[in-house]
C-alpha cells in the first residue's frame, strides 16, 4: 500500500506541475490587468483603470468588431461552401475525390506563413488593394478545408439508400439535400463551423500578411502593440479568458447536468 501512495504522489506531482505551467502565465496576466500602475511585474494596488482605458480605446474596439465580424461571416460562408463541397466530393469518382482531397489538405499541411505569402502574392498580382475584404476572403479560404474534413466522415457513414428513397418519393434533389442529407450530417457541420470560427478568431499569421495598414484584428493589434506594452491588453485578454472559460464549461458540463436532471426526473 505504501507503494501505491508513493505512486499517487508522483501522479499528483506531474499533474500539478503541468497545470501550474499552463495556468500561471494566464493567472499573472489576469492579476496585472487590475494593477494600479503601468507595470506588469510589480503590484501597486487594485484598479479598474485599464478596463476603462480599453473601452475608451477606439483602435481596440474597432479591432474587436473587425475580429468578430470576420469570424462570423467567414464561418458562415466556409460552412455552407465546405458542406456542399463535401457532399459533392463524397459522391464523386475515386480519382476526382483523391485529387480534390489532396489539394484541399494543402493549407492544412503547409505552414501558415506559406499559405499567407501565397495569398499575398495572389492579391498583389491581381492588383487588389489589401483591406477588410482581402482578410475576409483569406479567412474563408483557409477555414473551408477544415469544414470539409469535418463533414466528410459523417457522409461516409450515411446510408445512400435514404436520400435515394427521398428522391423516389418525389422530393426534388434540393429537398432531399436540405430535409434528408443535411439533418443527418449536422454534428459534422457544427464541429466544422466551430473549428472555422476559432481558426478565424485566433488567426494572426495569415491576417497579418493579407490585411492593409488600416485594418487590424485583435491578433495584429497585440502584435503591433507589443513594443509599447500596457495592461489594456491584459484587460482585453482577461475578458476573453473569462468568456471562453464560461462557454467551454457550459458546453462540456451541459451533458452532465442534463443527464443528472433526467435521472432526477425519473
Amino acid at each position, binding site marked *: 500500500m505504501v507503494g501505491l501512495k508513493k505512486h499517487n504522489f508522483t501522479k499528483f506531482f*506531474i*499533474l500539478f506541475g*503541468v*497545470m501550474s505551467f*499552463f*495556468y*500561471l*502565465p*494566464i493567472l*499573472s*496576466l489576469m492579476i*496585472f490587468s487590475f494593477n494600479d500602475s503601468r507595470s*506588469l*511585474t*510589480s503590484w501597486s494596488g487594485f484598479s479598474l483603470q485599464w478596463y476603462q482605458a480599453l473601452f475608451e480605446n477606439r483602435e481596440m474596439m474597432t479591432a474587436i468588431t473587425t475580429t468578430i465580424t470576420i469570424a462570423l461571416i467567414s464561418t458562415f460562408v466556409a460552412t455552407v*461552401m465546405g458542406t456542399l*463541397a463535401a*457532399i*459533392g*466530393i463524397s*459522391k*464523386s469518382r475515386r480519382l*476526382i475525390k483523391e485529387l*480534390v482531397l489532396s*489539394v*484541399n489538405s*494543402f493549407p492544412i*499541411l*503547409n*505552414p*501558415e*506563413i*506559406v499559405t499567407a*505569402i*501565397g495569398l*499575398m*502574392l*495572389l492579391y498583389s*498580382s491581381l492588383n487588389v488593394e489589401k483591406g477588410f475584404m482581402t482578410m475576409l476572403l483569406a479567412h474563408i*479560404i483557409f477555414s*473551408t478545408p477544415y469544414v470539409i474534413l469535418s463533414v466528410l466522415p459523417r457522409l461516409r457513414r450515411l446510408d*445512400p439508400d435514404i436520400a*435515394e428513397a427521398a428522391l423516389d418519393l418525389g422530393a426534388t*434533389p434540393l429537398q432531399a*439535400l436540405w430535409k434528408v442529407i443535411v439533418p443527418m450530417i449536422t454534428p459534422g457541420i457544427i464541429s466544422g463551423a466551430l473549428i472555422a470560427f476559432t481558426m478565424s478568431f*485566433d488567426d*494572426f499569421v495569415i491576417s497579418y500578411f493579407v490585411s492593409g495598414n488600416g485594418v487590424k484584428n*485583435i*491578433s495584429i493589434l*497585440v*502584435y503591433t502593440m*507589443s513594443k509599447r*506594452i500596457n495592461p489594456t*491588453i491584459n484587460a482585453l*485578454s482577461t475578458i*476573453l*479568458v473569462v468568456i*471562453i*472559460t464560461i462557454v*467551454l464549461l457550459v458546453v462540456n458540463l451541459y451533458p452532465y447536468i442534463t443527464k443528472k436532471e433526467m435521472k432526477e426526473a425519473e
Partner: protein
Amino acid sequence: MKGYASLVKPYILWMSLFIVVPMLLIVLYAFTEHGNALMAFRFTLGNFMRFFDPVFIKVLFKSLEVAIITTILCIIIGYPIAYVISNASERAQTLLILLITLPMWINMLVRTYAWISILSDGGILNSIFQFFGLAPIKMMYTDFAVMLGMVYNFLPFMIISIYTVLAKLDRALIHASHDLGANPLQTFLRVVLPLSMPGVISGITLVFLPAVSTFVIPKFLGGGQYMLIGNLIENQFITVGEWNFGSAISLIMAVIIMGSMILTRKIDRDASDTTSVEGGKLW
C-alpha cells in the same frame, strides 16, 4: 444521387484559384528575378543560390535545432502527463483534458506575451529568486525563453495526440502482459510504448510543423535580433520587400517540412510493420 457529384465543381474552381494559383505564384517568384513587369519573367536560380550563404544556412540550422529540441521536450514532458491522464477515472479524464485544452483557446500571441512579464529582468521569476537571496538570471531574449514559449504553446497538441491513443489502448493486453510475468517496467516498454507510437508520431508532426515556421514566439521572447527561418521570411516580405528571395526561402522550408513529414510517416509505418504482430499481419 449521382447528381450531387456536380456540387464539387464550384469548389474545384475555387481551390484552383485560391489554393493552387497562390502555390504556383510562390514557385514562380522563387525562380524569377525581381521586377515589376508581370509578363516579363526572367528565370533564375539566383534566389536559391543566395540562400547558400553561411548567414542564411545558419538561420536554417538554428530553426531546425530549436524545432527539434522543442519537439523532444514535448515528448519527454507530454508522454508522462498523457499516461497519467489516461489512467485516471473517466470523469477525471474529461476534466483534465478540458483543463489542458482550455489555454489553447486563448489567443496565441496573448499567451506568449504573458511570459514576458514572468521572464523579464525585473519579472516575477527574478523577484522570486531575489526573495530567496539568489542572483537574478537573464532569461528574456535567450534560447531558453524561445524554447519555453514554444513548449508552452505546442505541448497541448502532443499531450492530446498521445492521450488519444493511450485511452483507446486495450487494457486486456496489459493484464495479459502482467499475467505472463512481465514487471510493470517491462510491460510499459514492450507493450504500452510500442502501441502508443502512432500517437507520438502524430504529436511530432503537430509540434514540429508550427515550431519550425513560427515567427511570433522568437520575436516576442527572443527579441528583434533573434532570427529563425519564419522571421527571415517575414523580413523579406514585410521589411525588405524582396519577395522573390522570400518566396525561395518559403519554398525551401516547405520542401524540408514535407520531406520530414513523409520520412516520419515512413519510419512509423516500417516500425509498425515489425511490431504489430497482434495487428493480424501474420494471419
